[in-house]
Each structure stands twice: as structure tokens, then as C-alpha cells.
């Protein structure tokens, strides 16, 4: 049973002295960066340079190669059209119209999602219903509901709002519900210990604890709603009288005013960046980042 293992003999290497080593020499330990290097190290500067470079490329290509403005207008021309239409045309009203519809749809969607999730957290049947409904409707692109919405609500803002509600509701309900479910039992017990029940329990314990997940849902819902709105307006925006930003793009492309298309795209990007980076980022900074739930 007891087999004696023979250990490997340790190899002992002979000692030696390395003769051909040069004198030790201290290199630069800390170098003062040159002025250009210091400027280049600023994040904003590099990004501004990239942005300017892209704009320069665009302008250089369109002017230098004499590209037909119908196919690809130059940057300056598009920007001029944007400013012109914003201040002298009715683009600003179209933007306002889009945002108004978006706020209605987003608000209604959030409200319905809140009611659904409340039902889902208070009963098992509700939870099952949310799981079923989100699994079914979340993969359904809300724009596909537009033909039905127009049938039910006619041409107009109400069909747009219906489609937006569909875009927001499932993303928010799904994320909020799973966020609530993942709130740790410790936190729940703390809440119960404080005597919180019903709505105060949800508002004071569940919502703050699940806020990162709720924020994700709101951001996904916003992204879907924004995409759906522009898509819907591209087709049916005109029917509701004034029309929105998507309709402005479509109209410009129909009239082969490509510079108008680019002006509309600039506006879409601007609004998108404003909402994503200013609004949501600020909410995050004030809540989940401040509470140390997210870095």
C-alpha cells in the first residue's frame, strides 16, 4: 500500500558572474509633457478634432468632387437649411409636435406599466400575466401595430399615442417587474420591520432598490418609442394635420430636397443626444449613482 515516492533530485546550477553588464543608468522617470501632448490628452479636444475632421471630410468631398446636391448636399448647405427652417420655417413646430406626442405616449405607457406591475407584485396571477404578456408583446415591433391602430383610432394623434404606449409599456413593465423580483429578501424584511405595507412598501423599498433596473427599462422604452415615432411619422404623420419631425424628413425626401433630409436627421440626433445624455444621465447621477448602486 505505502509506495515510497522518490523525489526528483534538485538541480543545482553553478554560480556565475555576468561580466558584460553595462553601468546602470537611470532613464527618464518623470518627463514634463510637451504642450501639444498635454492638449492632446484632453478628452474633449480629441473628440472635437474627430468631429471637425468628419465634418471637414464631408464638406471637402462634396465641394471638391462637385457632388450633385440632390444626392449628397454639403455640410454647410445642410446646416444652413436647418437654421433657416428652424428660425424662419415651421421646423420648430414640427419638433414640438413630435415631442408632444412622445410625451403623451411615454406618460400613458409609464402609467399603465405602473398599474400592471403593481398588480404583478401583489398577486401571483398578475405576475404570470405580466410574464406572458411581455414575452408575447415585447418581440412585436410596435410599428407593426400601426395599421391596426389606424383602423381602431383613425388617422391622427391617438393612433400614434397608442403605438407609442405599446412601445414603452412592455419594455418598462418587463424590466420593472424583474427588478422588483430581484430585490433581496433582506431589504424586503427591513421594509416589513418598519411596518411598511402596500403602496408605501412599493414606493419606499421596492422602487429605490430596483431603480437601476427601472432606469434600464425607461431607457429602452424611450429608445423604442423614439424609433417608433420617427418611423410612424415617416409614413402617416401628415394625416394628423401638422405632422412631426419624421414627416419633415419624408416631405423633404419626396420633394428631393436632400439638404432638408439632412437637416431633419441633425434635429433627430440633437434631440436623441439631449434626452439620453442630459435627461437620463442626470436622473442616474442624482439617484442610482449617488446611492452607490452604479458607478
Amino acid at each position, binding site marked *: 500500500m505505502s509506495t515510497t515516492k522518490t523525489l526528483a533530485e534538485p538541480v543545482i546550477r553553478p554560480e556565475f558572474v555576468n561580466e558584460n553588464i553595462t553601468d546602470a543608468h537611470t532613464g527618464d522617470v518623470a518627463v514634463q509633457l510637451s504642450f501639444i501632448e498635454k492638449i492632446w490628452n484632453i478628452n474633449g479636444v480629441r473628440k472635437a478634432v474627430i468631429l471637425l475632421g468628419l465634418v471637414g471630410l464631408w464638406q471637402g468631398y462634396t465641394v471638391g468632387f462637385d457632388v450633385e446636391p440632390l444626392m449628397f448636399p454639403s455640410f454647410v448647405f445642410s446646416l444652413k437649411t436647418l437654421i433657416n427652417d428652424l428660425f424662419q420655417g415651421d421646423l420648430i413646430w414640427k419638433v414640438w409636435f413630435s415631442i408632444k406626442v412622445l410625451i403623451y405616449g411615454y406618460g400613458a405607457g409609464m402609467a399603465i406599466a405602473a398599474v400592471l406591475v403593481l398588480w404583478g407584485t401583489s398577486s401571483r396571477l398578475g405576475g404570470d400575466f405580466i410574464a406572458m404578456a411581455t414575452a408575447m408583446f415585447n418581440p412585436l415591433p410596435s410599428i407593426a401595430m400601426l395599421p391596426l391602430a389606424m383602423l381602431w383610432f383613425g388617422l391622427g394623434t391617438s393612433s400614434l399615442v397608442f403605438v407609442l404606449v405599446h412601445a414603452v409599456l412592455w419594455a418598462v413593465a418587463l424590466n420593472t417587474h424583474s427588478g422588483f423580483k430581484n430585490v433581496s429578501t433582506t431589504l424586503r424584511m427591513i421594509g416589513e420591520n418598519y411596518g411598511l405595507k402596500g403602496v408605501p412598501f412599493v414606493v419606499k423599498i421596492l422602487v429605490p432598490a430596483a431603480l437601476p433596473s427601472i432606469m434600464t427599462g425607461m431607457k429602452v422604452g424611450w429608445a423604442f418609442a423614439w424609433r417608433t415615432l420617427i418611423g410612424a411619422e415617416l409614413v402617416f404623420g401628415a394625416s394628423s394635420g401638422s405632422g412631426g419631425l419624421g414627416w419633415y424628413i419624408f416631405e423633404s425626401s419626396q420633394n428631393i430636397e436632400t439638404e432638408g433630409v439632412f437637416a431633419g*436627421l441633425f434635429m433627430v440626433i440633437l434631440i436623441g443626444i439631449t434626452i439620453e445624455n442630459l435627461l437620463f444621465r442626470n436622473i442616474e447621477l442624482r439617484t442610482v449613482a449617488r446611492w452607490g448602486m452604479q458607478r
Partner: protein
Amino acid sequence: MSTLPQTVVRPEFEADDLATASHADVARKLTLWERIVDLDGVRKLTILVALMLAWEIYTRVSGVSEFILPKFSDTAAALYDSLVNDQLLIMIKNSISVLLTGYAIGLVIATLLTTVAIMTRFGSDILSTLTAMLNPLPAIALLPLALLWFGLGSSSVVFTLLHSVIWPVALNAHTGFMGVSETQRMVGRNYGLRGVMYVAKLLIPAAFPSILMGLKIGWAYAWRTLIAAELVFGGAIADTSGEQSGGLGWFVFANQMDMQIPYVFAGLFTVILVGVIVESLIFSTIEAKTIRRWGMQSS
């Protein structure tokens, strides 16, 4: 010096009115009914069946016009009919082949962009500037431009799909790679991994949750963009390339125009089915075989 509050000593007492302890059910055998209700699948199936029944009964009792809300049985018949006789299968195939083309090319471009971005700081700045600008831009808004540049046809749709796939995928992959911990990187270097092997064996597995998230978002945007593009311009796109073209979105739109409402619902069901299959079969399987198995994601 602050004086400490006096300690309150409550008098001892004995509660006399306690009833004798009685053993309640500690572990009880569940009845058959309770056990059936406890099955997740049974409850969900019941809800589904109940919804369908409610739909059917509502349409029959209220006598709502079939142009507003067709009966569930009519819708199911329309779905069966269009799957068997009509060209729904061909349309599904058309939609999916366009989607796959756009998705695949988008992935290749996103990979190239991410590669440049992780190799140099300047590349990373380019990627973050581009994604910050172009990610909030709905891909469908580019469709009018694409139609102008590439004409009516599937190449325009592929162009918009590219736009909807590249940015979320590149953005998430980049953040994933950036977030790989220094310890893991050093482990990789310790093993002597370099270049492609370092990326394939270390960075990709370590950043896989984030990469998969990007793939899923890219798929969701692409699917929505495709349906929207087909709804909006499907007719124009379909007309140019022969009779048996047009995709699922076009099926919905054309049937709505013809007031074939049961077929509209059938089209929507198909859209849901394809979505559910891709999301819960393909992506869930990938998730189960990779990140969940590796213990990077719970449940």
C-alpha cells in the same frame, strides 16, 4: 460632561392568559389541485387560453365589426390558410434573408470598428464619438436617404439594417473589452497569449456578457427597423423585384389596405412568433451555453 439617561428597568411579569401551544400543520401534503396550480406552465397556459376565449366571446357577443376586431377563430383560420396556401412562408423567408444579410455585414463592420478602437486611443475616441452621435438616430430615418442613394430594393433596407446593428454592437463590445479586469489580462499574458489568441481566448470570453447584450440589442433594433421599412416602403420595394417578394411587414400592410383584417392579425402573430423564436430560443440557448454555464450571469 453629559449625563447618561437613567436605565429603565421594567418589572418582571408572567403572562397568564396564554393558550396551550398546539401543533398546526408543519408540513402538509398538497392536494392535487394545489400541485397543478403550482406548475408554472399550467398557469401561463390557462392565462393564454383565457385571453383567447375572452377575445372569441367578446367578438361573438358584442357583434363588433369584423373589420375592427375579427374573431379569434377567423384569425387562426387566416394564419393557417396563409401558412398553407398563401405566400406567408416565402415572405418570412424574404424578411429573414434580408435581416441576416444586414446583421452579418453589420457584425463584420462592428468587429472592425471595435478592433481599431481597442488597439489605439484615437480609434477608441473615433468609435465613442460616432456611437454617441449615431446611436440615438433611429435607423428608419435613414431610409429616405438610402432609397435616394441605392434606389428601391433590398440594398436600401440592408443599408438601414447595417446602421441599426453596427452602433449598439460596437458600443457594447467596446465597453465590454474595456471592462475586462487587469487581473484577467495579466493571467492571459502569463499564459503567453498574444494577438489574435489573446483576443479569442481571453478578451472575448471575459467580455461576453456585454457582447451578447450588444448582439441582442442589435437584433431588436434590426427586427423593428426591418418591419418598419417593409411597412413603409415594402410596396415599392416589392414591386421592383417581382411578384414573390416583400416581407412580413408588407404582408401586414397589404392586407390592411385590402381590409383583410384576419390576415393582418395573422401577420402580427407571425411577427411575434419569429421574434419569440429568435429571442427565447436562439439567444437564450447561447446564454445558457456560455455566460450562464461560465457562472457570469445568475438565473
